[in-house]
């Protein structure tokens, strides 16, 4: 791939992510209706550009709430949970991974065993387990996802730091009397950034699906907050009467995740020359 073709995935993925961010931030301006406002007279209206009762582009749900407005507001939770989890799990995982790789020996042994313990649980299952006991809530949800996700960063960063610490520039910084924590923060961690960015992008896609899955199972945020997963779950009861209630929220999740995966693929092609040669 040459020239601009290399950037197609990044542009398309980035554009989709941008739409998600804009719709989340500007939800009150973009949403035609209040996502919680119930109009029972208008319940289960099919998608239509103009009806006598109002303009419901994506239809209404069983309580007469506008689906488009709920999908626009729903992007907030996906974005918030996705971004917060990726940043917090990334920070924690990278720091712990760098400490393990840099200091080695006993510290590495303990941290590596701990990551093995967390990896013994399938990712979503650990999040389900934590949510089952903590209960619904945005904070709990982010905590559960961070606890389930940090190990991926930790393992990759540990591996990279193991080889980075032997490199000349790190040895030189040490010879010049640099303190360990300074060397980790200033010289080691910044060099792991390309790999971390690629993992973070794919992790965002995985976390958004996980959030939607947990909300679908009733283990996400409280039902009063509109999320794509809970909309799908509610819509299931009206699947044959009002298929739009399951089709559109699912499309929103799918397109968002597809966009982020495209972005991650594009970033990997550019940041990881070995893989991009294969692709």
């Amino acid at each position, binding site marked *: 791939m040459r020239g601009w073709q290399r950037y197609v995935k990044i542009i398309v993925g980035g554009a989709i992510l941008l739409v998600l961010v804009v719709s989340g931030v500007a939800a009150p301006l973009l949403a035609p209706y209040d996502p919680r406002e119930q109009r029972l007279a208008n319940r289960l209206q099919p998608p239509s550009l103009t009806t006598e009762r109002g303009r419901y582009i994506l239809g209404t749900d069983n309580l007469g709430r506008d689906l488009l407005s709920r999908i626009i507001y729903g992007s907030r939770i996906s974005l918030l949970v996705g971004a917060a989890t990726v940043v917090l799990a990334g920070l924690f995982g990278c720091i712990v991974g760098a400490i393990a790789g840099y200091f080695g020996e006993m510290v590495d042994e303990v941290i590596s065993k*701990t990551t093995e313990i967390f990896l013994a649980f399938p990712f979503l*299952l650990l999040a389900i387990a*934590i949510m089952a*006991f903590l209960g619904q809530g945005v904070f709990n949800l982010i905590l559960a996802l961070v606890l389930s996700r940090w190990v991926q960063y930790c393992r990759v960063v540990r591996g990279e730091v193991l080889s980075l610490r032997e490199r000349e520039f790190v040895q030189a910084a040490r010879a010049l009397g640099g303190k360990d924590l300074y060397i980790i923060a200033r010289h080691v961690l910044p060099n792991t950034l390309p790999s971390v960015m690629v993992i973070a992008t794919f992790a965002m*896609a995985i976390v958004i699906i996980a959030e*939607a899955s947990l909300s679908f199972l009733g283990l996400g945020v409280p039902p009063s907050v509109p999320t794509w997963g809970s909309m799908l779950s509610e819509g299931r009861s009206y699947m*044959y009467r009002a298929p739009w209630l399951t089709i559109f929220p*699912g499309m929103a999740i*799918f397109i968002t995740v*597809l966009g982020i995966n495209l972005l991650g693929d594009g970033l990997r092609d550019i940041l990881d020359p070995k893989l991009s040669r294969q692709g």
Partner: protein
Amino acid sequence: MLRRRFIGAIPVLLGVSFIVFFLMHLAPGDPVNLLLGDAATEAEIERTRREWGLDRPLVVQYWEFIRRAVRGDFGMSLRYGVPVSTLIFERLPATLELAFASLFVAIIISLPIGVYSAIKHNSFWDHSGMTLAMIGVSLPNFWLGIMLIFFLGGQLNLLPVAGRIEYGIEIKPITHLYLVDSLLTGNLAALWSALKHLLMPAVTLGTSLAAIVTRIARSSVLEVIRQDYITTARAKGLSEQAVIWKHTLRNAMITIITILGLQLGALLAGSVITETVFSWPGIGGLLIQAISTRDYKLVQGVIFFFAIMYFIVNLIVDLLYMWVDPRIRL
């Protein structure tokens, strides 16, 4: 190496058991209230606290938890009033059948597409294969399941939308895997019904695994195909078929099996959602029921069981390495 693998597993299993044990104490409030619900009387709470040993120090409780877990005793389900392990083993065949079927679906979709994409690198087929994989990996499986139910079950009325077998069809239980049992007993009506019931859940659960394995299969075949020994095989005049089947695929399979093994955990976790969507009577569905009825002993038992199953699967993957790659000796 095998012995080292087992010894190394002990601290990991202890850590896993500690997390599972600790989960109960993660919940806000008294675990006894969680176990009994809000309507419990003071006397009931006190009695349960003593029965479950919750009045003893945490370390003692943890030791007791491990001691019982080693014997397969995860306690009693509050809702069903039977041992948690009985409930798990009753439902295990349904989950296993779904997991194997999904694995089968994933393999028959991913291997041909992935390998062909690599052989025809940068062609139209390669790009189409990779686009399909990208779509597959981005599809939330619960949505895919709901859409399949809507179109294939509801609109076209082609496949049943819930359960494992048609009501009224009896199967003589041998392995409790319906497909196997119906084959063993020659019960074709049951086989057909079980297959129809299994198809949609297996596709739902297998799709994302298929997408991941397609990409891995393609990249590992690409990597192997560029090795010197493949050039040598071609140079000595071997047919392209022999080069691909004997030399390339066998070496590429090492990576593919690793990924399949690692992804089996995701398959187990995914079964929780797929079983809920299709009312599949397996362990995943049992977990969600247990969470919604606050049957915490059952939740704890199922989570522990899943983690151990995942661990065993990873061990089996390690053993498979030896079979595929004789260079790795155990």
